[in-house]
């Protein structure tokens, strides 16, 4: 196995708060690596630095051996990194299908194309419908995005992440705010992705994490205090003390 993503000694502070503290972590090829940690541990801040919307104070991020620490977000997307958002981040003014079609369009080189109406470009629309069907939104394709429920927005987030067909998926709490049934469906969806993509999954839902992850890292106060298989993490005293015990 070779590492797709290597995070080396990353640091990031906001004023007095050290949100990322000498963070080191690797995601292997095809691995589903889950990161758990209490609220405010710095999980989202880590993702933001991986996708480029925030710049670390020090440390390095390598994608397939290439240093991307300071690369612009859109360039990282071109390399094959995609993210989903903890707080749903969609283009609310557009239809459900438009959102996914835009994600597909992003993969086809530049979009300085002015002549053809985007909504008549069949392969984008067809593929968009397929993806939405895959996440269970087949009957919502033409709805306005604002009109969908929270659970449906979470599915859209996943469909958009899938549209990128990215080698590395950074998923920030895809189950945030979902009910039990919806969570189970999301776990099933994510299970279907295992092996096809390398995935860094942030998740609070312990059942989901233990069901899905190949390896788990525990993040506390911006620092990884343990990494291991689900069984190892369950048995780790420091982890139980710092985190699992609180649950």
């Amino acid at each position: 196995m070779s590492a797709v993503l290597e995070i080396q000694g990353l640091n990031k502070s906001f004023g007095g708060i050290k949100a990322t503290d000498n963070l080191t972590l690797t995601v292997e090829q095809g691995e589903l690596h889950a990161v758990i940690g209490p609220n405010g541990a710095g999980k989202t801040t880590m993702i933001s630095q991986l996708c480029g919307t925030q710049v670390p104070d020090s440390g390095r991020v390598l994608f397939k051996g290439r240093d991307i620490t300071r690369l612009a977000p859109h360039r990282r997307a071109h390399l094959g990194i995609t993210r989903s958002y903890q707080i749903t981040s969609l283009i609310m003014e557009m239809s459900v299908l438009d959102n996914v079609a835009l994600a597909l369009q992003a993969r086809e080189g530049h979009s300085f194309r002015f002549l053809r109406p985007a909504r008549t470009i069949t392969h984008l629309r067809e593929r968009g419908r397929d993806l939405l069907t895959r996440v269970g939104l087949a009957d919502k394709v033409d709805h306005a995005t604002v009109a969908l429920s929270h659970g449906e927005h979470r599915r859209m987030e996943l469909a958009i992440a899938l549209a990128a067909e990215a080698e590395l998926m950074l998923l920030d709490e895809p189950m945030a705010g979902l009910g039990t049934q919806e969570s189970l469906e999301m776990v099933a969806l994510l299970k279907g992705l295992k092996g096809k993509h390398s995935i860094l999954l942030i998740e609070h839902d312990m059942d989901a994490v233990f069901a899905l992850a190949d390896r788990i890292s525990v993040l506390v106060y911006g620092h990884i205090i343990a990494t291991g298989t689900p069984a190892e993490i369950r048995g780790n005293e420091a982890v139980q003390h710092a985190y699992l015990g609180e649950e």
Partner: protein
Amino acid sequence: MTRRAWMTLAVLVLLAIVPPAFYLSGNAFYLSLATRLVILAIAAVSLNLILGYGGMVSFGHAAFVGLGAYAVGIPAHHALYGGWDALATNSGWLQIPLAVGITALFALLTGLVCLRTKGVYFIMITMAFAQMIYYLIVSIEEYGGDDGLVIDSRTELWLFDLDKPLQLYALCFLSLLVALGLVRMIVNSRFGMVLQGAKGNPERMASLGFNTYAYRLTAYVISGAMCGYAGALLGNFTTFISPEMMDWHRSGELMFMVILGGAATTIGPVLGAVIFIVLEEILSSYTIYWQLPFGLLLIVTVLFVRGGLAGLLGGRK
């Protein structure tokens, strides 16, 4: 056809028929009013591309109108009084490309800077650049400075004789149709989807892989150039141009038209121009402070009528 589409068609048909009919029945005044309306509508349509669809609230669009007008006035001035031989001509083959080219360049150079900022900073900096051009023109005495410049002969064009009011109107109206068609095409294209996406959620667009800065800059340049063309028409219509054309009031008026008429709708800016011209005529006959009620109306529309007048009359899309 949707209600919105019918309304668009109705407005355009009325604009095609009514003003020329007035003119032919001896009411030259209304054709003149409509010519100004249609030219302002083109400028508003161009602003709508970036403001309505792109979310870029430019408070300096009048600078493009002014530059476009001076791209007609300055060559015409030299054609009459000599100097600057390369520029001295009344030919549309030079003046129109000059108006479009110079405004595109101005949009590119200022856009490179403006688009690095967001929100209220963007508003302020676009206004600042426009005021710079304003003071630049004021300072050039050869072109009349503060007092402005009379355009002694209009642009010479193929097919259209702009000294004939009906032909000038025909050109302006056809230009409006082309501008509307262009903006519609751009908005619906893949480029347009990116532009609208970048308005709705720029961070998401970047994480999808779009360099939103480049797309917004391109839209800004297209909008500036289109507005410059409207300026060239305005110079030909008024035959008198002055730095006052690029004053921030004028930029504000264009913003009013877009927002009042309905931002991000095809016909909205045209409706906005209609209301603007009508109000200007009615209110200014009652009070010289007509901008006050106008401003109040704008505030009411922005607060209570989502989608502007186009939204009110045509329903949501």
